[in-house]
């Protein structure tokens, strides 16, 4: 074998690679992101199988939802970001309209009056729509303004965020309201809002928090705060979840108890072991190394998301991709930190691992947006 052969072979490899690139681009898929998502879904189904006590139907249903999600993701990724950008205000307005509708004819479930039960449609939560439409409209709004945003623009940005978040709080779904607000705030942060304003905001939040705690916070919210600081103040009531989940995590040790051997979860000591607290099941059965693997998979997806934001060709796409990725991180971190006792309990699922319905679809829509941004209107091999 000589040098020429080597060069020829290498260029030939390049040719295959670019052809593959072309195929992926044609179907508007981002292979690394897709691989990360599929790995996470597989891992999630695997854990769910154990967490649900080997309930095949639960796992099948989740797999179907995930398949549906992937389909939705590909549908979304077919749209050019420009088209999406044009529709952003409309989607936002429609989302707000649905929220108002919920106020009028919403259905209550799990203490939150956030469900809409329209004839001919499966019941869904309009607040899910806002998880997408708020970052969309924020990116739409700020991308066409000079950055860093001026005070006037910040004011309107705040309006765009607070209006839906407020409506969702009225529905008694604080967790979702926070997530919706955060997805908008991430856009502002990425748009280069001055750090002093950020610190001022954090500082004033800290200052306001005692007042919130004393005057606004509801009893269960106060309880969660108190429980966070001392779970053992009510070990069989408010503190039960976090105590049991910490026991599950801690007793998993480095290597875990093995798949299907998690005593805490299989003996029903972990509440919500299929949904919000599924990390405790993972940590118990696969130990510290299992959680590290999950973090690694998440990191892979997150870095790819940030990379897509970094490569995006216009500010709208950048802001949107960045916000979507950071919101995903926020979900991941808040859930993991809550289950391990790092932050107070907030009812949020672990993305792609927890059992769920519409929330998973929302997640896949945002992945579709990322893929759309990555695969439209860019140079090959960018």
């Amino acid at each position, binding site marked *: 074998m000589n040098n020429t052969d080597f060069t020829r072979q290498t260029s030939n490899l390049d040719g295959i690679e670019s052809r593959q690139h072309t195929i992926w681009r044609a179907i508007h898929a981002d292979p690394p992101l897709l691989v990360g998502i599929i790995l996470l879904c597989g891992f999630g189904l695997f854990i769910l199988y154990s967490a649900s006590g080997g309930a095949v139907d639960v796992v099948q249903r989740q797999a179907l939802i995930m398949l549906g999600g992937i389909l939705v993701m590909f549908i979304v990724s077919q749209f050019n970001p420009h088209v999406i950008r044009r529709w952003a205000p409309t989607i936002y307005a429609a989302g707000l309209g649905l929220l108002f509708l919920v106020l009028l004819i919403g259905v209550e479930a799990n203490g939150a009056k956030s469900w809409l039960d329209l004839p001919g449609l499966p019941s869904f939560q309009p607040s899910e729509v806002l998880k997408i439409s708020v970052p969309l409209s924020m990116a739409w709004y700020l991308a066409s303004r*000079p950055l*860093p945003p001026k005070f006037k623009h910040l004011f309107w940005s705040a309006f765009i965020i607070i209006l839906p978040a407020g409506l969702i709080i009225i529905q008694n779904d604080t967790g979702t309201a926070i997530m919706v607000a955060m997805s908008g705030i991430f856009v502002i*942060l990425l748009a280069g809002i001055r750090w002093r304003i950020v610190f001022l905001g954090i500082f004033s939040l800290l200052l306001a928090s005692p007042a919130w705690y004393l005057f606004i916070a509801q009893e269960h919210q106060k309880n969660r705060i108190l429980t966070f600081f001392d779970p053992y103040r009510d070990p069989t009531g408010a503190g039960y979840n976090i105590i049991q989940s910490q026991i599950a995590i801690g007793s998993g040790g480095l290597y875990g108890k093995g798949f299907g051997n998690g*005593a805490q979860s299989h*003996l029903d*000591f972990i509440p919500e072991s299929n949904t919000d607290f599924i990390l405790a099941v993972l940590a118990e059965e696969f130990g*510290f190394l299992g959680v590290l693997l999950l973090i690694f998979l998440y990191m892979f997806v997150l870095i790819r998301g940030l990379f897509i934001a970094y490569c995006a060709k216009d500010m709208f796409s950048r802001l949107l991709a*960045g916000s979507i990725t950071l919101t995903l991180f926020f979900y991941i971190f808040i859930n993991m930190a809550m289950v391990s006792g790092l932050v107070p309990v907030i009812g949020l699922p672990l993305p792609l691992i927890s059992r769920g319905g519409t929330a998973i679809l929302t997640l896949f829509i945002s992945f579709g947006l990322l893929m759309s941004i990555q695969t439209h209107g860019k140079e090959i091999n960018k």
Partner: protein
Amino acid sequence: MPGKWQLKDHEAERLLFDGRLLTAVVLIALFFVALVLKLINLQITQYEYFSARSDGNRLHSQYVPPARGLIFDRSGELLADNQPIFNLTVVEEQVVDINETLNFLATLIRLTDEDIAQFNIRLDRNRVPFASVPLRYVLTDDEKSRVAVNSHLLAGVAIEPQFVRHYPLSSLTAHSVGYVSEINQEELDQLSEDDRENYGGTNHIGKTGAERTYEDLLHGTVGYEIVEKNNRGQVMRYLDRTDPIAGKSIELHMDARLQQAAEKALGEFRGAVVAIEPSTGGILAMVSKPGFDPNLFVTGISNKDYSVLVTDEVNTPLFDRTTNPYPPGSTVKPFLGLAGLHNDFVDYDFTIQDPGYFRLPGVRYRWGDYTLRTVIGGGHGQTDLQKAIYQSCDTFFYDLGHRMGIDTIHGFMSQFGFGQNFALDIAYARTGVLPSEDWKRSSRGEPWYPGDTINSSIGQGYMWATPLQLATAASIIANKGKVKQPRMLKSVDGEPYDQVITSKIPDVFLKDPDYWRYIEEAMTMVVHRPFSDQFRDYGTAYEAIAMVDRDMSYKMAGKSGSAQVVGISQDILSSTDIVVSDLNKDHGLFISFAPAQNPHLAPQIAVAVFVENGEHGSSVAGPIAKAVTDKYLLDILQIDFDTLNNLPPLSEPVKRPLITVSDE
């Protein structure tokens, strides 16, 4: 809008955005590091602690109660066995809201206020945390399924199978075998530390009778098991187990068939029958009537059932008539006779001319012949000791008792168990009263009057004895003085049980052992001496026993007695349910042993019968003793007396347990 686009510095904005992305990457990394540090803290640093907590969550050590030993009669028939029931139990620590749970349960199954009150009492007792506490015993199949279907709503509630005591003979053994019932706080407090551990899984304890006496043998040793329980307290897996050691099964001397026969023989009467095997002291039958169903007590008797039992002042079913004292009446006469012979106050030739009454020297008051009080005029005429016994001549014994004095009577008769509890394993038996001058001074603060002796001489006045004592005393005469203390226990787990006798009771020695024969002969005449031309010369029980059964194949020695009823409460007298005169009737008594005067066979059974308000010892109590004796000798032992009687007389007299020589 285009104007604004021109204002934008795309390169600067891009740099700004990229800076923010970099910040985001750093922050994400930092947050994940914080998360990983927290995980390291939980999963590696505190692994041991949480591992132990996890085991503590799921692993529970629980008691495994031992199976209670069974109780058999002498022929192997079950007197007490264990049967499975299903109980509803609650682990309080796992119940979210106890009141809500109880209210919900009340909609599913029958749950009375009383059940709940009982449950609360059980909860208040010292108990291990996470121990299950019975809420209701004996769930029906229907109730079981209704609870099972709703188990997801009933955290901490479980259905637990349990073996509980069952008494197949029901009321027949209610007093003698006794019953177990739920252990109460007092009983728990009395247990030693070790015992309390041993009773950790036990809900029941022997309350009365043999169940109580042999609690230690019957209970066994508690076992343990380590189980894995889920969040709702359901046992998922058994991980380790130390088996309990079942209680020992015991065999009683009692014979269920004889017990049945005695109960049947008592018929409608209230009363008691005690039968003893003289050679061993084994109690063959011990019946108090009316009885009650001891099974009611096992799973907690309801207030209603209980009040029925305790408010019946006439029948007093809970009252054990076999071990409670009554005036023994004329049944004491053979013992007084023996005392007179032994102490030289009478001999075989001694007679009195009985006018039908007795008068203390210098006292005008006449003690009438109690047995003749309904017969106008006359006494028994010329009367020796034997006639005084078979005719039950009061006057003879007034005279004899008066001459001996109460302390001589007391000293002699106490050897037969009067005034004491000779029973080895019936600690709850009362001692009755065998009066003496000292006894009256210390208990009544009064001196002993000569008239007291007269009353005592015919088993009245201060003299009180239990049917158990009378049967024991009769068995000592049957044994010619050899004392075999009465006992219930025959063997333990098939091993003959030699009772550890702490206080050996000395045998009764007479100056001349022939006195035993003489008294046995007199007592045999009570039953067998027929009517003759002689004035008042028949046995008092002849008409009711030997005359009824003319083909009687063995001889029975007996003595009848009737005792005046004392101390009927005004409450009972004013009761409308019962004819007052019935309650004023004398108590009928009879003691016997058989076969008597048999050259081939020592007496096999001694019986004491007490019939409350039975009026006559000879005609009412006597046939009951006969029926019990018949059952035992002819049906159970199946002794063929006709063949036996046709055997040539032995060259040596039959070896009786004790004739002259002490075995010490």
